């Protein structure tokens, strides 16, 4: 069931590749705006890089969240899915994993390239990539709660960011903190472990409140 949901969502996403590419370019543009805004001094950019890349990753993930359930809601698929014998949480988990593959993984791949623009060392680039790899699943998981709560609500997009961004703060802190710690020579292990804990929590606990919120939305 899990694999079927993931496969289906991926196939649907592949039919609308422009959306994925748009989110990726959004990420690239936001990151590229910062040097233009604060100036090109390499020292300053290097210090800012972890925060900038992580904040841009939060925003880019959020961009694709409203579509997580909206399309299925519109054509009635979502109601059929709630009738499936499997727990709704498992189906949501599948959709979260698919969302991460489509929205989170491309950011992980792009991040090192953008990190070079900020003159990051190879160590820091590696940690940045690993931190995004561990942290972005948590973003998809937590974001799913917000997407379900704002499903079919007017002004859903803005509202979604209002609900989800405060909950993203711990992920941002530990994700950017891991790279910061590498830059300052402390070693990223502690941050990465906490990030891993958040990701596990986000991916495996968030589907249940999401399922509850979906049932509320479908009433």
């Amino acid at each position, binding site marked *: 069931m899990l694999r079927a949901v993931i496969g289906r969502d991926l196939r649907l996403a592949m039919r609308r590749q422009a959306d994925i590419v748009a989110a990726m370019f959004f990420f690239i543009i936001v990151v590229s705006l910062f040097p233009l805004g604060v100036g090109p001094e390499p020292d300053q950019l290097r210090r800012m890089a972890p925060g900038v890349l992580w904040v841009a990753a939060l925003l880019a993930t959020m961009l694709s969240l409203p579509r997580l359930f909206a399309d299925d809601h519109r054509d009635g698929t979502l109601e059929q899915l709630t009738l499936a014998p499997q727990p709704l949480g498992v189906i949501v988990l599948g959709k979260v994993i698919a969302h991460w593959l489509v929205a989170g993984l491309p950011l992980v791949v792009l991040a090192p390239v953008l990190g070079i623009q900020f003159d990051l060392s190879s160590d820091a680039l590696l940690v940045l990539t690993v931190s995004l790899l561990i942290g972005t699943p948590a973003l998809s998981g937590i974001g799913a*709660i917000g997407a379900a*709560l704002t499903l079919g609500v007017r002004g859903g997009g803005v509202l979604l960011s209002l609900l989800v961004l405060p909950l993203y*703060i711990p992920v941002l802190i530990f994700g950017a903190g891991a790279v910061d710690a590498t830059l300052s020579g402390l070693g990223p292990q502690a941050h990465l472990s906490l990030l891993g804990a958040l990701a596990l929590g986000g991916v495996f606990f968030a589907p249940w409140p999401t399922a509850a919120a979906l049932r509320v939305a479908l009433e």
Partner: protein
Amino acid sequence: MTDRVINWYKYASPQTFYPLAGKLIPWFWALAALFGIAGLTIGFLIAPTDAQQGEGYRIIFLHVPASWLSMFIYLVMAFWAGIGLAFNIRLSGMMASALAPTGALFAFLSLWTGALWGKPMWGTWWVWDARLTSELILLFLYIGFIALQAAIDDPRRADKAGAILALVGVVNIPIIYFSVKWWNTLHQGASVSLTKAPSMAAMMLWGMLLCALACWMYSIAIALMRVRTIMLERERHTDWVRALLSGNGHDTSRHP
């Protein structure tokens, strides 16, 4: 014992709770005024001047109660929201939405008075201290809750969606608090320490506690007033509200 249980259920219905709340409100206002006068008297007239901070510290009598209540009200709100979600009680959801604006107000007051206090003491309106940052995030959580409820037209759905958000928020608050704290210790530059002097004059403590009680009573009174308004708005089709309002000549029957 059984009488008590029956009583609780009795007042879970808006129709019976409405007059009860109406009777309780003046008492809570009176208590709020009483505690407020006592607390402010102690705070401004009796409590000694602080050795380090002079008279400026007296904003503590609003600042600390506001911070306490902003956190406490979120817990109470999540509690009512959870009860409402679990047992499907309309009144609980209404209580949660009635509490949210007061909680947001206290979170804002706490930040504002903190800024006013910080300027003369540390020479800055704002530092990215762990407590300040988490209070700011708490304000964001309140705003999210209020915005979500405001965006959903169907009150039952608004209650339930808000309840899920409040419960998710409660689970997240400790995570957010500790992450901000660790972030802060890692980034601690030439910043100020918020840790207060370990010993606090007894009178200062009394003034603060009385002011906190005053704020608490105020919150209950204002939340009950708000919940009464919400009840009237949501139950406007019911007979008891019509009977109540018929004296005022309101015609609510045309509303969908």
